[in-house]
């Protein structure tokens, strides 16, 4: 398994488009499995760290000795979209289950962090992110990679193929915009 995914990843980074088609279901499957495992065990209000999840999937799927470091960024690039889908689905399901009992949240902050702890409404974030992407698709992608896959500024730049400075600027303005959109929707 590890071998297959590593090779697919290498082929895909090397420009083989078909490899991605084969790679997606494998990565998605693993992410889903891990996410379910973690989410099932979450007590309400407990944390789910999507970054940690993707890291874990990466360690499980990829043969660490044969992987080029750039491939890591590409892997995370694929995983970002999926993890977003998984988290949003999960939050939606939760929401329905609670039947209007207020928006379900997946806390991104570590439970140990006290200051500025803020539960995030993933569904609302997803909506806002969709709106942002219509204004500026690249910014949407940057948020996906930074937030859902936990890529650093540099890694994000690597995946999209733009400069870190641009990523940083886009990231900061995107955050401001999303923050404002979400605070608006917070209001009654």
């Amino acid at each position, binding site marked *: 398994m590890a071998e297959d995914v590593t090779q697919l990843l290498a082929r895909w980074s090397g420009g083989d488009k078909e490899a991605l088609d084969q790679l997606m279901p494998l990565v998605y499957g693993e992410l889903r499995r891990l996410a379910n495992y973690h989410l099932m065990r979450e007590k309400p209000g407990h944390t789910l760290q999507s970054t940690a999840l993707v890291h874990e999937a990466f360690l499980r799927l990829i043969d*660490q000795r044969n992987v*080029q*470091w750039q491939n890591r960024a590409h892997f995370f690039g694929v995983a970002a979209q999926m993890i977003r889908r998984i988290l949003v689905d999960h939050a939606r399901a939760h929401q329905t289950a609670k039947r209007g009992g207020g928006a379900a949240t997946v806390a991104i902050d570590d439970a140990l962090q006290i200051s500025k702890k803020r539960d995030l409404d993933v569904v609302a974030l997803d909506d806002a992110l969709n709106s942002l992407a219509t*204004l500026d698709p690249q910014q949407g992608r940057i948020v996906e990679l930074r937030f859902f896959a936990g890529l650093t500024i540099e890694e994000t730049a690597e995946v999209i*193929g*733009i*400069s870190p400075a641009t990523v940083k*600027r886009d990231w900061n303005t995107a*955050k*401001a915009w999303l923050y404002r959109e979400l605070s608006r929707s917070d209001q009654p």
Partner: protein
Amino acid sequence: MNAADWQIVKEALDTASRLEPDEKAAYLDRICQGRADLRAEIQSLLSAQEESEDFLEGPPPEPVIGVKLGAYRITALIGEGGMGSVYRAVRDDNSYTQEVAVKVLKRGMDTAAVVSRFRAERQILASMEHPNIGRLFDGGTTPDGLPYFVMELIEGASLTEFCDRNRFSIVERLKLFRKVCDAVDYAHRRLVVHRDLKPSNILVTAAGEPKLLDFGIAKLMSPDGALQPTMTFVKMMTPEYASPEQVRGEPVATSTDIYSLGVILYELLTGHRPYRLTSRLLHEAAMVICQVEPEKPSSVVRRTEEVAPDLRITPDSVASVREGKLERLQRRLSGDLDNIVLKALRKDAQRRYSSAAELSEDIWRYLHQLPVRARPDSFPYRAAKFASRNRLSLAAAALAVAGLVGGLAFAVREARIAQAERQRAERRFNDVRKLANSFLFEFHDEVAKLSGSMTARELVVRKALQYLDSLASESSGDLELQRELAKAYQRVGDVQGLAGEANLGDTAGALKSYQKAGGILEDVLRRAPGKETKMELATIYDRLATVNAGPDRGFGYAQRSVDIRRELAAEAPGDPKSHASLGSGLWALAQQYVQKGDIRKALEIRLAMVREMELAAEGLKTPRSRRNVALAYKSVGATESKLGNFQNALQYLRRAVAIDEQLVREYPDDVLHRMDLSFGLSDTGYTLRRMGKLEEALQYYRRVLPIRREMAEADPKDHRAQRAHSTTWARIGGILGDLGRTSEALEALRQAFRIRWPGGLAALDRAEDVEVAEVLADFGDILFQDYERTRNAASLRQARVWYQRSDSVFRRLEATGGLSAVYAERVRLVRDRLPRS
């Protein structure tokens, strides 16, 4: 809000957030130009920005303050590094309180393997007791499953910081550095290699004692105990301190630490690092580390280096914290210290100091004015090494050039001083000359093929010119040597700025080099007419024609070149080389007609060129001759396309693309062919667009994109590559606009924009660059097209904002007389669409 508004808001937000409060209002007034809605939007986002700093940012490093690890309780974060975070912690037994540092590794490392290697090494690591080595007390796994290490807590500053802050002189720095060497030697004698020596791993206490941190930790991180260029390795190491064998993924030994000590000493003495690795790609970093020779410490201190947008290392900044005066510092460094540092930094591990103790001792000798053991690499050694390579490498070239300059000066001096030994000196002189030529002729071609070799090539050009100028002044009597010199100047000129090849973008420098070459050859021809010399002169004329700024002088050169070639071809009918030669002369001449605006005449000449190139390739069959045929086809295709003969154009372009594709397949490592291919594809796209076949055109441009992007990213300093990449996006944007896909079109233009002008819009408004004006107008066009289709007033408004911006750049250019008549049409279009004031 629409996408175009968002772009304005976004840029303004970014700029405004960096302004002082009182500047902000004025800035926003200017940017929003009376649009209250935009202004309100920006205001609201500015306040959101203040609160959103932590929003969506990753979780804090784990574990956090208050958590207990074994007997220790975390009290504060000290800092974060490549492999994890370091915390201050306290042992809270009731008995006593001891402060320690705890390093928790990042997620993503292979926990189980690290922990098991730690168990295996623990004994050895714990047994290291040395006043200059930070102790390692313990290790384990956090509740989250991350490995951690408990270490002695060192209160201090990094080695470089400490020395700079205290304005340590060179001697003081050397004394401190010797303590570091002694600590490393102590560990080596226990068979512990550090593998990650760098200033941040050497803290100096307030009392001035250096303490080495992280001994042995690197090994625990690496699979199989050997450092391999895996993700783990790169994430962990600061590649600038890594040795050639490390970046090659070879097993490491104590000599690896000697190398890193060399890097540290280099930085300590000069404030510069031997290499600034700008590329994040491992293989490029590896190429530099393994192949480029560092500059001598005594000369690097004269350099100004931009290490970050806000951080410049200047001769002044370096000298002021060392010896005060630059000259003094240079004198101190040159000679023995240069030799010592460079010996530690040798690529070949065998030729470095054999131990840290030996390095330390050599420094001791220097401090006591005893002769040091380090010697500069000797000329015969370098020359031999150089000659023995069949495929020339960067390292060989750098060595050879440095050796040549030195060797030549030596030979000349010797010739002057010792008449009796004249013959011997002359022989040496000739050897040097031969080496120089093989270097200049073979090396450039090899290096130009490597991606990302810009810096190395700049260095080579500088050295080569230095060498040539000195040779020229010594050798006017020897006609053979004169011709060789001319060839060499030509080569250097090519590298400096020959369009169509990878070059450094220095056309003025290229022109000068070509003129030197031309002058030399004209002189030789006057004294001894000959076929070969004529040919050489024709080549120079071609070059002069291409790089010459004034069109009329270029025309004269091109015509003279074609005359020589026709004459030579007539003397040798049927010879493929003379066809090739006439072909390339015609190429340059056609170019001149294009510049004069006589397209039909240009087409006529290009068709003649096609015939010559085809004949040449039939005989020669070399990749170069085939490439030339493709070039000829492309030039005819482009001309036909301009004249509106689209079917003809497509026919020629298709043939060109087929040849280039074949060459790309045969020579996948040669970027030149990929670049060639991209031109054929983009010309096809251009033609299809003009034919109204927009979807097809788009497909062609999309095939161009990955090639251009690859080129641009491979070498961020290659301005032509950046420009070509950006232009491709701009074309795609234009076509998308034609297709009515407005938002995609704008996105494509934004890409074009970001690539060429990463500084963003704010900088552009002040620009005096006609291309900026054009791209700004492109934005306007797309929105205007949208308005024409949808009659959406907002699009018109937006279009005008862009046109306004474009127009103000045009106006600035007009005011300074910097706007060529070629743009009259574009300017008119922009102004037509602006409301009359």
